[in-house]
């Protein structure tokens, strides 16, 4: 038996999550999420979807994002979803889902394929409109959209319209996306201050 035990680090090479605040907007890295991608196999779309809907306690139609008690999930493409849970409790989320869904779906571990960032504040839209081409007026709570931010492919989830969003990018892009997020939050905050000045 090996004597070595491997420890985890974040996408920034740290133990603690990356955070930053500008004005009343806070950015927080979410390394505590386990993620699995689920793609329904032929003829299994409704079976898979209803299983996932039960897990998150809500509908998971096109562009939906639902947060349940233990699990949350969002639509990523036709018959495809990402499912999330707490990493400490569900590190092998993909394996568990494979047991649950058996051969109805193709499931892939994405714990470290993507890294999530939460953006919270009273006017996050001023930030988000500088980052991505989403029509924010229709991007209500419970919506998910994949788009591009500063040439980085991202999923953007709306947790509370205007106030709480979660953005995922490929883990290897974390530093670049963080730079885009942080400079934009700083810039948008400064511009807002100028406007009220």
């Amino acid at each position: 038996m090996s004597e070595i035990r491997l420890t985890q680090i974040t996408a920034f090479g740290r133990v603690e999550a990356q955070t930053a605040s500008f004005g009343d907007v806070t950015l927080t890295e979410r390394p505590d999420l386990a993620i699995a991608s689920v793609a329904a196999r032929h003829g299994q779309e409704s079976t898979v979807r209803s299983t996932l809907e039960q897990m998150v306690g809500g509908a998971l139609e096109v562009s939906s994002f639902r947060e349940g008690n233990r699990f949350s999930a969002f639509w990523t493409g036709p018959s495809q979803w990402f499912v999330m849970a707490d990493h400490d409790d569900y590190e092998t989320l993909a394996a568990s889902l494979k047991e649950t869904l058996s051969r109805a779906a193709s499931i892939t571990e994405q714990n470290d394929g993507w890294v999530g960032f939460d953006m919270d504040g009273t006017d996050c839209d001023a930030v988000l409109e500088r980052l991505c081409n989403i029509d924010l007026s229709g991007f209500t709570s419970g919506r998910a959209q994949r788009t591009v931010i500063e040439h980085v492919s991202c999923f953007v989830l709306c947790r509370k319209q205007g106030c709480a969003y979660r953005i995922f990018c490929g883990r290897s892009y974390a530093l670049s996306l963080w730079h885009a997020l942080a400079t934009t939050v700083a810039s948008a905050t400064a511009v807002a201050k100028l406007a009220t000045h």
Partner: protein
Amino acid sequence: MLINHPLLGPRDAQEFTYLGDASLLNRPDGMAGGAAQAFHDYLYLRDNPTGEHRELWYHEQGDRSWLIVTRNVSTHEILKVELASDVALSQGAKP
């Protein structure tokens, strides 16, 4: 341009990658007789119409769907957008 994605609604063309003529769906059978000629025609012979054109776009920064976009290449008016997989299935993709 805005491409009216059949599932997602209007999306900016910046999210898409362009491939070309939608006739690329009609790939010949590589094991059939005359395959060399058929593939030559499939790959190299294209109509280049002004006006309406059916073309393949990939929603790379979106849901990763391949779409068939019917577009007037003179005016950029988009007349129809379909999921390529729907079209391929309706054309009776290979068994």
